[in-house]
């Protein structure tokens, strides 16, 4: 890992954070009544990934053209880190015809065939799909890999276990990523999961499983690098569980009354922590940090403007591009 890698990872984390901070404002800006999630320019539910950037950035730093990601209902950080176009993604979130799915999907259904990026509101749904994509890569003889992302709650779905089993049996180039943010909506991990470490569950399928404990992008980078190398060289699947942090509610509008750790959430924010460590090491200055933030804000402004300026689908569009 070079100083450039670290700066690039910091920049990407800031880019994602500035994006979501803005989406958060825009989302709530025109919701009247506040509880009507269908109201306003961004219709529907909103699951933000703020605090979980290290998982996405540390993993995606190792991906190249042709590699695939299947993400869950909280997809923005992985989408941006994997190179999904910010304009098209934002337009989709705003339900516009220029969006990735022509405005039919919304924030949980971002499909980008060019970058092999998909996500889904059905939890753990991306795991079997990732196995399929990895099988295709393997059969085509490429050294591409697929990353399957899910939350620790989703790891209690049958699809998680079936996928680990299949990937192990067929020795598929998949990296299973579990983002353990301690909560599945309002359910703490230990209340739903007999084996609280998914790194251990991987062992049950003969797959190496690693748990990265402290939401540290460099630790994720190293673990993911090893797992991606392993997959590319035909050694098979690995699982990486990142103990991460949900800075915000499960969805926008979640009052989080169930959460005893709310008070300390802000001080555990991984981005200021990383900035401080880079500054201490002399690899980032205050001025650079300001520039990085300003550049991100400018890109985000442009994406929001693109979305807002894009056409809203007509009633006739509802019948276009649908199967049945």
């Amino acid at each position, binding site marked *: 890992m070079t100083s450039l890698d670290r700066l690039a990872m910091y920049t990407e984390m800031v880019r994602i954070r500035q994006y979501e901070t803005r989406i958060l404002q825009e989302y709530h800006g025109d919701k009247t009544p506040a509880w009507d999630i269908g109201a306003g320019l961004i219709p529907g539910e909103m699951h933000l990934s703020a605090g979980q950037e290290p998982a996405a950035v540390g993993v995606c730093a190792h991906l190249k053209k042709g590699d695939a990601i299947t993400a869950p209902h909280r997809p923005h950080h992985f989408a941006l880190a994997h190179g999904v176009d910010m304009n098209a993604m934002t337009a989709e979130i705003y339900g516009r015809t220029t969006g990735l799915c022509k405005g039919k999907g919304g924030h949980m259904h971002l499909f980008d065939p060019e970058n092999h990026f998909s996500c889904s509101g059905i939890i753990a749904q991306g795991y079997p799909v990732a196995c399929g994509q990895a099988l295709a890569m393997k059969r085509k003889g490429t050294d591409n890999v697929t990353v399957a992302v899910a939350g620790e709650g989703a790891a209690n779905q049958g699809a998680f276990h079936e996928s680990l089993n299949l990937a192990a049996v067929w020795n598929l180039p998949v990296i299973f990523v579990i983002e353990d943010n301690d909560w599945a909506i309002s359910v703490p991990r230990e209340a739903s999961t007999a084996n609280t470490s998914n790194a251990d569950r991987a062992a049950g399928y003969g797959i190496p499983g*690693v748990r990265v*404990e402290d939401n540290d992008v460099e630790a994720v980078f190293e673990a993911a690098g*090893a797992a991606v190398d*392993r997959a590319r060289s035909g050694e098979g699947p690995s699982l990486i569980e990142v103990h991460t942090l949900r800075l915000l509610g499960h969805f926008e509008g979640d009052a989080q009354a169930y959460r005893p750790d709310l008070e300390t959430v802000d001080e555990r924010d991984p981005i200021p922590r990383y900035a401080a460590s880079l500054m201490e090491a002399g690899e980032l200055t205050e001025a650079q940090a300001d520039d990085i933030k300003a550049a991100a804000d400018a890109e985000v402004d442009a994406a929001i403007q693109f979305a807002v300026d894009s056409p809203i689908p007509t009633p006739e569009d509802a019948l276009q591009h649908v199967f049945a």
Partner: protein
Amino acid sequence: MEASVTVGVVANPASARDIRRIVAKGGAVTTHDKLNRLQCVLAGLGAMGVERVISMSDRSGIAAGLQRLSTRASSESWPMIDFVDQTITGTKTDTTVATETMVKAGVGAIVVLGGDGTNRVVAGSSQDVPLVCLSTGTNNAFPRFTDPTVAGMAAGLVASNLDCRTAGTYRAKMLTVEHAGRVENAVVDVAVTSGDRVGSGAVWEMDSVLELFLCFAEPGAIGLSAVGAAVQPTTRRLPTGLNIRLGGTGDESDPSKPGSGERSPEQSSHEERVKAPIGPGLVADVTIKSVERLEPDAPVEVRSPAGVIAVDGERFFRFDSGDRPVVTLSGAGPVVTDVPAVIHFAATNGLFNSPSTAAHVANPAHDAEPKSETKPETRKR
């Protein structure tokens, strides 16, 4: 009030889950395995008359599992289990807080389930309390592979019987590395690596290791200390340790590169290459530049120009060119238990003859009331 025999238990829920599962063949010691071993320990403790156990708390399934299991009929012979009432951070602070609480509460022994890293953290606060170390980590040079039931019995004996304690425990060596006001202790090794960041913590690329300081280097161990064992085996009971300079594979002619250092021609002419098992499934060819005995209480400067200091196989902090961290070996490590020696002593002194022998021997170490401020919460009975 009669003093009860109490033993502490620290089981690191996070041990054996690091990157070495991918980059090496690090085995999986699952939470369920750890719970299984703990049940064996508890049976051993109970059989030796230990009445109370204080366990670390965690949110990763160990404390919850113990709590659940202790309500079952099969736990009848176990001591009563209390859990340390602590704020769980999911970091090594939990281990430190738990150990401190146990020491204050006057435990007669602490059973540690974890690898070198876990033992290092416990040793930082265990003071004079004997540790009984069970290996559940990835690189295990400090804890030995010991049957957990037997380990539980040994812990019970050491906690309740002064003669057992005298016969079967000793003070281990320790390394202290000091730099810019920072002090870290190691129970096995201090490594100087050429990287510039801490990353995932684990050390597995031998090319990056420039210098090693070893408390001991026992044949049969895996990890960085195996390099020492391959050139100059040094037991854990000897007062001295080892200081080894390694070759790396960098461009030797570039003095700005870490690893090239200043070295005299006669030293390089002594270079040898050895094979050492530095991790599970990883046998590395290592170039040895020099091997020196490390004398106790004699501070030694790190010779590499810059790099990252790793403690017990885990990278910790960076130092810059011009800086010179100092490493000192001492005999001031934790008190540890030689399990077979305890069992041998107990057998030859008739301590296994009656089922409740141990319970009738006064607790030698702590006859006072527990002084704990953080009152452990009673969850059983």
